[in-house]
Structure formats: structure tokens, C-alpha cells
């Protein structure tokens, strides 16, 4: 199986006054195409930072990262943005929908940014898949938390991305809504065969992934399935 994501000797440091804090310490990671991976760990362990670096949202202090064969560590911010467009999907803990746009427009956004034709039909169909066809014209503030996260799922899957990054996707939802969203996430992922990188401290959710890694003190360890 080909490699979708590769990280080599990734170090992330931040300076806080005189002191230098090491967030990630020489992380090596290889994720195969179509694989589902969960990264678990305590708050502040550096899992979300790793997720952001793997997606090219920032550059590591040192080390190299390839996403779908592209060397993110050699790219400018705009080049990384273009590399993401249409190829990478995101689901965040706090939904991160654009408040100015309707549900449909939020889903259209990544399709348009990637220049994908037939955007309208695809966005409508994605929202249909998450059961929100009747709420196309609603704005985020008119939707419940669970509904907002379903719009975010539709937005993530609509461009048929190669990779989906999910950061605590059920963290802001009650148990019932959390379960529904998780079911949808894994169903859609299974149907599309997307590589999934999931960051969570919910071991139950992590257990639904094919592989689990645990983050401790900035380093990755193999974790036992829950």
C-alpha cells in the first residue's frame, strides 16, 4: 500500500520568554493510503500540533513532512494552501463553520477553492448524505451543535479528499449527538476510502480506527486498542 503521509524527525519548539518548550520531539510517522489512524493522549501532549503540521497548517521547527507525495516542508504557505485545496478535509471540535455563509455555502467553499466543477450538485448531495437537505439555507447560528458538525462532515467529504483530519470531532457534543456524528464519520470514510487521521482522548472513538498511536511528552508510541 502506498504512503499517504510521512513525517521524519519532526521537532516543534516554541519559545516562551527565555525558555524553549519542545512540543514535538523527533516524531517519525508513516500513514498508508486508506488507513484510519487515531492519535490519543492527554491534553497538551501535542496531538493537535502534530495534526496541524501533518496538514501543512504550519511548518515544523525541524524535520520533514510529505503529504500525498508533496514535500510540505519545502513549500510556502500559499503553496501549502493550494496543496490542501480539494485534497484535504477537516473536522474540528468546535465545528468552525463560517458564520456568514449558509450550510450549503459552507459546503460549497472547499469545492470552489479547489476549482471542482459541478460544485452545487456535489454540495447538495453531501448535505443530503448527512441528513440536512431541509436546512440548506440555514446559517450556522440557526443550527444545533450536532447539525453544525454534520455540516462540517459534509464540507469535509464533499471534495472527496485524499485525507481527512479530525480533531476531537465529538468533543463538543453530548453523548447521543456524539455517537451519531461518529457513526456518520466512519460510515462516510468507509464509503470513500479516505485516509483518516483522528486526534482524540476518547478511547472508544479511537478504537474504531485501524491503528492507534499514543502521544506522550512530544513523542509517539504504539498504543493498545481500547
Amino acid at each position, binding site marked *: 500500500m502506498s504512503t499517504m503521509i510521512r513525517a521524519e524527525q519532526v521537532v516543534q519548539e516554541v519559545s516562551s520568554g527565555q525558555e524553549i518548550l519542545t512540543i514535538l520531539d523527533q516524531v517519525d510517522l508513516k500513514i498508508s493510503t486508506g488507513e484510519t489512524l487515531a492519535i490519543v493522549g492527554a491534553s497538551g501532549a501535542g496531538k*493537535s*500540533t502534530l495534526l*496541524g*503540521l501533518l*496538514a501543512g*497548517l*504550519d511548518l515544523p521547527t525541524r524535520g520533514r513532512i510529505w503529504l500525498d507525495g508533496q514535500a510540505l516542508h519545502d513549500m510556502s*504557505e*500559499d503553496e501549502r*494552501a*493550494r496543496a*490542501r*485545496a*480539494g485534497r*484535504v478535509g*477537516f473536522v*474540528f471540535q468546535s465545528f*468552525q463553520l*463560517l*458564520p*456568514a*455563509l449558509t450550510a450549503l*455555502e459552507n459546503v*460549497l*467553499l*472547499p469545492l*470552489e*477553492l*479547489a476549482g471542482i466543477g459541478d*460544485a452545487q450538485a456535489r454540495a447538495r448531495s453531501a448535505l443530503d448524505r448527512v441528513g440536512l437537505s431541509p436546512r440548506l439555507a440555514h*446559517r450556522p447560528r440557526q443550527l444545533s451543535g450536532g447539525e453544525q458538525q454534520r455540516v462540517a462532515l459534509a*464540507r469535509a467529504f464533499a471534495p472527496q479528499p485524499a485525507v481527512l483530519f479530525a480533531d476531537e470531532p465529538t468533543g463538543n457534543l453530548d453523548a447521543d449527538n456524539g455517537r451519531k456524528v461518529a457513526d456518520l464519520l466512519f460510515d462516510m470514510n468507509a464509503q470513500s476510502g479516505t485516509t483518516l487521521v483522528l486526534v482524540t482522548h476518547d478511547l472508544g472513538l479511537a478504537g474504531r480506527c485501524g491503528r492507534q498511536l499514543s502521544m506522550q511528552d512530544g513523542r509517539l508510541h504504539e498504543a493498545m486498542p481500547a
Partner: protein
Amino acid sequence: MRRPDGDQVLLIVAMAVAVASASAVAFFSARIDAAMSRQAGEAIAADLRTRDSQPIAQSVEQQALDLGLDTARTVTFPSVVIAGERSALAGIKAVTDGYPLRGELRVADKPFGAERIQQHGPPAGEAWVDPRLFAELGIALRDEVQLGALRVRVTQVLAYEPDRGGGFTTLAPRLLLHADQLDATELLGPGSRASFSLLVAGEVAALDALQTNTTSQLAAGQQWTSAEQARPELEDALGRARRFLGLAALSAVLLAGVAMALSAVQYAARQRDAVALRKTLGATGAMILREELRRLLVLGVSGGLLGLMFGYIGQWVLVRILGDLVLMSLPAPPLWPALPALATGAVALVGFGLPPLARLRRVPPMRVLQQTLGPPPASVWGAGLVAALAVGVLLVWQAGEARLALIVFAGAALALGALAAAAAALTWAVERLRHRSGAAWRYGLANIARRRADAILQLVAVGTGMTVLLLLVVVRGDLLATWRDSLPDDAPNVFLINIQPDQRETVRAFFADRELGEPVLHPMARGRLLAVNGSAVDSEDYSDPDAQRRLEREFNVSWTDAIGADNETIDGQWWGEAGHGQSWISIEESMIESYGWALGDELRFDFAGQTVDLEVVHRRKVEWDSFSVNFFLLVPPALLDDVGATWLTSVHLPPAGKTELLDLIRREPNITVFDVDALMAQVRRVMDRVSLAVEAVFALTLLAGLIVLVAALQGTRQARRHEAALLRTLGASRQVLRQSLFTEFGVLGCLSGLLAAGFAQVIAWVLAQAVFDISYAASPLLWLAGPVGGIVVMTLAALAGIRGVAGQPPLATLR
């Protein structure tokens, strides 16, 4: 105090703009006031003056001299001055040795050079002329000019004469010479348009005695005027100008107030956590309020001082623009206007900025545990009332009277309401457009729709300033050009007046010889109205100032049996040839209305001592801008043949013909030539200057509007930063982000420009119809300048307001 943050900086800038606009006008007004009070008593260059179109009787002057008073005489009249091949219409003033009795003349060695005081006017053989005449004639000091039959040497630049009057320029530049040379000019024939004054100065008791003794000897219309009585007219004109500039400045102050309110609201919102924490640790509401008041004071004083600095520069700009129209040398500005200007800023700051800060004292300490808790909701009515009160106080103060303030308040509220409604409609319409594809376009338009209240506020704030500027810059020029175009190409452009009976043939021959057409000569006699239907008239009986003025002077009356196509009968019957010798009169519509006369009324006139009774039999409407010679009053021919008439005519001359006209003036110097083109150029020059000054003040209004825009943007900065990060996460490049910002503010700018162009167009139509009576089509320039100006101004301001938003790394922001 800590380094001020963005909202505080905006509050300082808003305060600075408010104080700058208020103080620029206040400093400027104070300079004019100071110049005027220095002039007190100088306004007529004497203690008492009597003035008439006939020389004042020698016996009156003799009585003044007998009472131990000083006297002087002046004669003023318009005439053409010639230097080589150039000529210019000047206001000639001939003065006797004593002039001026009060105040002083100031002269210089070169135009606008250093001024020297002269106690008396020029000696015989010399002329002093004002700087404009140097320019118009292209002469230098010591050059000779021709005035009528007299050649006279120009020996001084006349910088200031105390009784120039009016404050603002009279149209023709001055030429001052000695009264002994008047006869040599041969300019003053019977019926010429001169004004003769007798000036008197001295002890109060003697002045009183003179007034008592001579009142019965003065002819009708002649009366003594004191310096105090002469001043109100001047003060009225300047007072109106000052009030207008003051109110214009107030529009900037009020917009700045809105920016203060926005900044204060945003600042307060960010302070809530800190206030809650301090309350948890024991701070009381009163302590919080004291601290916020202190902060507001520091910000207000910083902004105020900054504003005063710019206001001082601003008044200097106003003086540069208007300085040479105000025919007084202005003393350095006093410092006291700083106080009312600061007070104006303070009222705006307290009215708009304090309420949001004051509410901080009511933030519940429980907020440290529950972030959603804020102070109890603001009473919109309460905050609105405080702001409205501030607006009211400022308006009444600036307008000087409650009624005008109320009218301005209502007018402004109505205009702003209309602007807001139009802005709301435009934003609504724009939202329909967002369903076109393109992420940047969609997102940019979506932002306008989501922050619709902000968008409307920004549109109104920026649109207000732009409307006024478009009116001043584009519409003014358009209206003038349209009006000029509406005149026929062969409309008369030269008037010849003061033609004596024996010169009629010379004039006709002059035009015939040069094939310049056949001028129609109209007779004119001047008569004083004595009675209407048997009752003596008194100017006090009429409220219309023009009606009063005409009664105090003389009416121009002409006679004819044929009226031109530019005269239309409204009432009664035109007499034609049947009218010869009949005691009838035809009166122009507006004049008959201003006096309330009707057909059948009997008017008694005095024409140079000859009393004539005339019955009103005809009422006409006159199309004045045909530029042909027309009269308010017409009588049949053969009625006034022996009262002593002068003749006048109007002709259309090509430029070459105008040069040839100089020959006629050289030969017949008493004939006065009015060059309409030159007069129009002078009127335009005055209008240009005045409107440039008003533009300068309204530029501050636009600036204040832009600060409102930036203040509103400041409040959305955090959210925009977050959204930009999210867009980047989803794959948007910096370019896409920039495009969406350009879309949002380009569209907003375009809308504000369209709004301003629309309002300016409507106002232009109303002005064209109601005031100028011309048809004014849609102005392409207006519709181009508005949107383009709006896009440029608003995009630049917005980019300045939210710079750096797109540059945030997404990871840092999403955390």
C-alpha cells in the same frame, strides 16, 4: 497608562477629528471677528455718513464744518480702466483730502507685499489700485492707466480701505484717486451710476446736533448712517457664512461621535473579563467608573490636543483659500477658540463615548465563572437619549438659535434616514447577487449580508461626506456648464451703459462701420417712488430687503411701445403704439409681488424734480437670462422725454470685437462697458474659492466617515482573523483572501458611491428645477466619480483597518 490599544487609538483619532474640524472653523471665525472689531467705527471710515445717487448739498457739509466736525467726500462708480491693449472694469473711488476720517488706508510697493499705513488718500495725479487690477491690466507700479479722459499714474498698491464694506469682495477691483481729478475723467455725466457720500466725524454732541439740524434738509433716501448701523449688514453676511461653516464642521463632529461610540463599545466589550476579575477581588462599581472616567479623560485630552494642532493648521488652510476674498487683513488667531472647540469634542465624547464605558461598572463578578454573563442589557433609549442630547446641545450652540438647530436636526435626521433606507435596500439587493459562483465573491458578499447593520452604518457614514463633496465638486461645475450651454451662442456678452443722448449716433455708427451688428438702444431714466395710491411710501412698510433697498434708492424706468419675445404678458394689455404719451406703467411680475401692487394702482414718481403719476396697466414675466436689456418698469414713449435719459444697449461681440471696443471707450470715455464674460469669470472665481473652503471642511466629514468605517472594522477584526485562518485551512490562498476583502469593500465602496451619486443627482435636479430653472440631465461624471471614488476610498481605509488579517498562520488562530 499602558500603551493605548486599537480601540483607544481610534477614540483618540475620532476626538482629534472632531476637535480639529470645530477648531479650524472657530479659529478662522475668531480671526475675522478680531479683524472686524478692530474695524469698529472704520466700517464707514467716519462717524456718520450720508449717501445718494446725487451729490449731497454743500449746505449740509457747511453746517457740519460750522459745528466743528471734520468732513470728507467720496464718489464711487464703475468704469473701465485701460492700460495699453488691456482693459478691466474697476470700482472707481474719488476721495477728498480728509478721507478717511476714521481708520486708515494701507498700501504696499508690490501686490501682496508688506503693508504701510497711510492716513490719507492719493494726491492729485496719482492712483492707488488693488492687487487684482495689477493682474488684470498687466501693469507695474509707476505705469500710467487711462480712466475716461484722464491719464493717471499708478503709485501704490492699495491693500486695505476701511469702508470697502461687505467683508467679502465686491466684484470690481478698486482704483482710488483724488476727487479733484474727477472732472478730468469726464466720466460723470447726467444719469451716470455714481454714489456720492459725505463723511463726518467729531464730537458726539456735534454729531447729534448735525443729525437733528439737517434731517429735514436731506433729500428723500438720504439719511445719516452711523458706523454701528453699518455694521449689522456686514455682520449678517459674515455671521451666516460662519454659521454655515460651523454647521458643516458639526457634521464631522457628529460622525466622529459615532466612531467614538463604536470604539468605546468595543473597548468595553474587551474589558469585561478584567473588570469581572477586579470586582471578584473587591473593586466596587464606583472604583471601576472612576477609573474609566480617568481613562476617557486622558484619551479625550490627548485627542483634543492633537485636534487643536490640526485645527490650527486647518484655519491656516481656510485663510489661504478665502484670505484674499475677505478684504481685511486678518490678525493672528487668538487662542481662546481652543476652549469652545475642546468643549465641542468633550460633549461628543461624553455623549457618545461615555455610556458604553459607564456600563462596565455593572459587569457582574460572576462572569469569572460564567463567560456569558455581561452587564445588564444597555437601554437603547438611554444611550440614544444621551447621544441625542449631545447632538442637540452642539446644534443649538453652533446654530446660535433653537429654531435653526431644530430645522437642521430635522433635515439631517430625514436625510440620514433616507440614506440609511437606501443603504439597506442596496445591501439587500447585493445579497441576491452572491449566488454567483466564486468563493472570494461569495464570501465577500456574504460578509456584507452578515454584518448588515455595520454595512449600513458604514455606507451612511461614508456616503454623507461623499454626497456633499460630489455636490460641490461635480454638480456645481455641471450646473454652471449646463446653464451656460442653455444660453444661445449669440446671447449678448457686452453691455454699454451711460450713453448720453448725443452719443447715440456715434455708438450706432461705431458698430455699423465695423459690421458688428445693429445695437438697439434703450432709454433709461431714474426716478424715486414717492407715493402709492396717494399714500407716501416708507421702506419700513416692506419686509423684503430688496424692496426696501429699491425704495431707498431710485428705480430705473425705460420706455418703449414694443416688448421683446423674452417678455410675456401675465395680466393687463400691452399698449403698443396706442400708448404714446399715456400715463401708464408696466411692471415685472416679481417686483409687483414684492410690493403687493395690483393693476389699477396709482404710482407717483419723482424724475429729477418732475412728478409723474402712473397707472399700473400691465404685468410682465421677464426671461432675465436672455441677457438682453430688460427693465422692471416700462412706460409708453413720449411721456418722459424731458426728464433727462441715458441710453444703454447689449450686443454680442466676438473676442476681436471686444478689443475694438477699446477704441470707442477711448473716444467716449463716459460710456461704461460691462463685459459679461469677465464678470462671469469673476463670479466664478469667488464661487470657486468659497466652495473650495466648504469642500475643505466637508473633507473632514468624509474623514470622520472613514473613521466610523475603521472603527466598525476594528470590532470585526478578531472574527475576521479567525475566518481567514479557517479559509486558509480549507485551501484558500492569500490571493483568494485578498479578493474576498476587495469584493466586500469594493462592493461597499461602490454602493456608498452610488448612494452618494444618487443623492447628489436628486439634489442637483431639485436645484436645477427650483433654483436655476434649467433642465439637468443625469451626469455621467457623477455616476463615474461616485462609485470609483467610493471604491478607492473605502478599500484603502478598509485595508488599513484590517491589515494583517490574512497573514496569520492558520494553526495559531484556530487554537
